[in-house]
């Protein structure tokens, strides 16, 4: 692409642009969150929005997540489109009731009368030494709550396209941003200046391969790509699928890949029990069992909290080495 129609952007700026452009084109949209105005957000995702759109549309909220989500639901009832920021996705638990009981079910209980165009987004994930309450991936809670869509991009291009889709979606979307990727230099890429979206529910094949399918999302995409490189040196060709959207899940892309490779490993950084890596394995067993030549396997966080001390943090989270070992076991089965 030429310089005129694309600019080099990091993950954080891609998100910022998505919000800005949607705010610009849709007067009905408002933003709610703690420190999102003057401070521009704890990480700077909403920087500049207050100056541009004013405090009627960009509201600094008190520290009251339950109220933030509830107010988003109420505003959506009046036709507003709402972006609600959780300062860290860990604190979404404080708004849990409003999300799973009100936001997720409103469309259903009014028999389709109302839509809930609300995006709840926030910085998520470990590997940054954030300790127990600033490192979580709790997407499983919301995948487990019918009525919500759940998204987690891994590149600037995807971040912008998916956030725009989410903001235009009539359904509530929980949007997981990987804070360790926000300003990562190596991820910067040219993304189109003109409007584009990436539809929810479409996976992306990040690397093609024949011998094994790695299915993942978020930060683990990069671990998996590294594993694929290492396995190539051992003579194996690995396909890496970034699902990008958890709900709805693009099962077709996963199954098609397994038809080709006959082996699958799922990877995510949430705890193992009841996590999305397990959910994906269950679906593989239901839908692609006859294509498998090895037991499907997963690599996840241990069922422990996330310590911040470096060697301990990587001890509990998936790492290149751990994923590599699970892949080798699966390949050699």
């Amino acid at each position, binding site marked *: 692409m030429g310089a005129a129609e694309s600019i080099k952007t990091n993950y954080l700026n891609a998100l910022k642009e998505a919000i800005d452009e949607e705010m610009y084109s849709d007067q009905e949209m408002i933003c709610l969150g703690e*420190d999102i105005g003057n401070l521009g957000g704890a990480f700077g995702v909403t920087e500049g929005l207050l100056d541009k759109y004013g405090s009627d549309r960009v509201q600094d909220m*008190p520290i009251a997540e339950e109220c933030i989500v509830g107010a988003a639901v109420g505003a959506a009832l009046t036709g507003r489109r709402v972006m609600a920021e959780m300062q860290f996705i860990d604190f979404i638990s404080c708004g849990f009731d409003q999300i799973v009981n009100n936001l997720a079910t409103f469309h259903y209980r009014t028999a389709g009368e109302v839509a809930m165009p609300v995006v709840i987004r926030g910085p998520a994930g470990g590997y940054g030494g954030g300790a127990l309450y600033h490192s979580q991936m709790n997407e499983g809670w919301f995948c487990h709550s019918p009525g919500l869509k759940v998204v987690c991009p891994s590149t600037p291009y995807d971040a912008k396209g998916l956030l725009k889709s989410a903001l235009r979606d009539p359904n509530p979307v929980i949007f997981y941003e990987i804070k360790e990727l926000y300003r990562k230099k190596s991820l910067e890429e040219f993304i189109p200046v003109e409007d584009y979206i990436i539809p929810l529910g479409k996976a992306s094949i990040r690397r093609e391969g024949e011998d094994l399918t790695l299915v993942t999302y978020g930060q683990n995409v990069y671990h998996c790509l590294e594993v694929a490189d290492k396995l190539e040196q051992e003579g194996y060709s690995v396909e890496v699928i970034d699902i990008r959207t958890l709900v709805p899940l693009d099962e077709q892309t996963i199954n098609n890949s397994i038809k080709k490779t006959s082996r699958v490993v799922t990877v995510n950084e949430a705890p193992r029990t009841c996590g999305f890596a397990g959910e994906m394995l269950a679906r593989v067993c239901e839908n692609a069992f006859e294509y498998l030549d090895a037991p499907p396997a997963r690599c996840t966080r*241990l069922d422990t*909290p996330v*310590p911040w001390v470096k060697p301990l*943090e990587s*001890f509990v989270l998936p790492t290149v080495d751990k994923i590599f070992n699970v892949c080798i076991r699966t390949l050699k089965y």
Partner: protein
Amino acid sequence: MLVTPIDISNPESPDTLLHLYKQMLYTRIYEEKCNQIYRSGKAGGYLHVYIGMEALSSGWINALKVGWDYVITAYRDHAHALALGSDPVKIFSEIMGRSTGLSRGKGGSMHLYDPQKGLYGGWGIVGGHVPLGAGLALGAKYKKEDRVVLNFLGDGASNAGVVFESLNMAKLWNLPCIFIIENNEFAMGTRLEYHASDTELHKRGMPFGMKHERLDGMDVLQTIKDAKRIINHVREYQEPYLVEIMCYRYAGHGAADNDQALYRTKDELYKAKERDPLTKLANLIIEKNIATPQQLETMQEELEEVVEEQYAEADAAPAPEAEEVYHHIYTDMEVERGH
């Protein structure tokens, strides 16, 4: 010796004044070291210091029956632990994630925990600990013990729904709990007047019929008087109390906050520092000829050395074993070992 609770039965006595000054100065130096530790990459998570607010922790905690009464607070918790007499080396160790720390390095800066001193944390989720403080009072009342709970929270935290729920319950059941709003004028980068519809936060006791006051927190001697009076009242009459204490946060929100220019001017900060509780006490000490400026300077140098030694001792401990992650998740079983 330096930080253990001070006998404040006669707060204006030369000895007590000097001791108070030493404790507050020590706390400030300790906190400056904490900032340094964080910035050098030796502390993870997030870390928030109490610089500028030392009169509040020293004033209130010295007025307690330490070890008997309960204290609970948010993540800006080092000063509370120090005033209660928690081992400073163990606090440093906790902050640096060593198994020699107060909680074997598992809690970190924001989650100091030392129940022997009456410290029940250290909490990272804003507002989340406030009902726990009420629960501590509930437990004490149930046992008919005359314990008092100091339940510290920030001005920002005072907007959390659960705080109102806790206030109502505490008054409904007349729990011996003192809700102390540390009003340092900021919730991160959001000023008081942008987050609170009525900036007189003490009034939040009103709808529940709870006694409430707004007090100055920059003068340690006044704070001690207020603290003694209110703690005695709560102990004797077994009812909750809400106090809002006016103070100011000199430092950024946390050690990682580099954006102070976005929410306050340098001028404002200088003005606040004119009310500095340490300077105020130092002036009094000098005025009363209890010590010379030179002696106070020497004291500072000595304390700086002490803090450096404590840090060095904490830093000498090795990083914890990876095995640690499996321990203390359940009392009676282990989680599945990994990969």
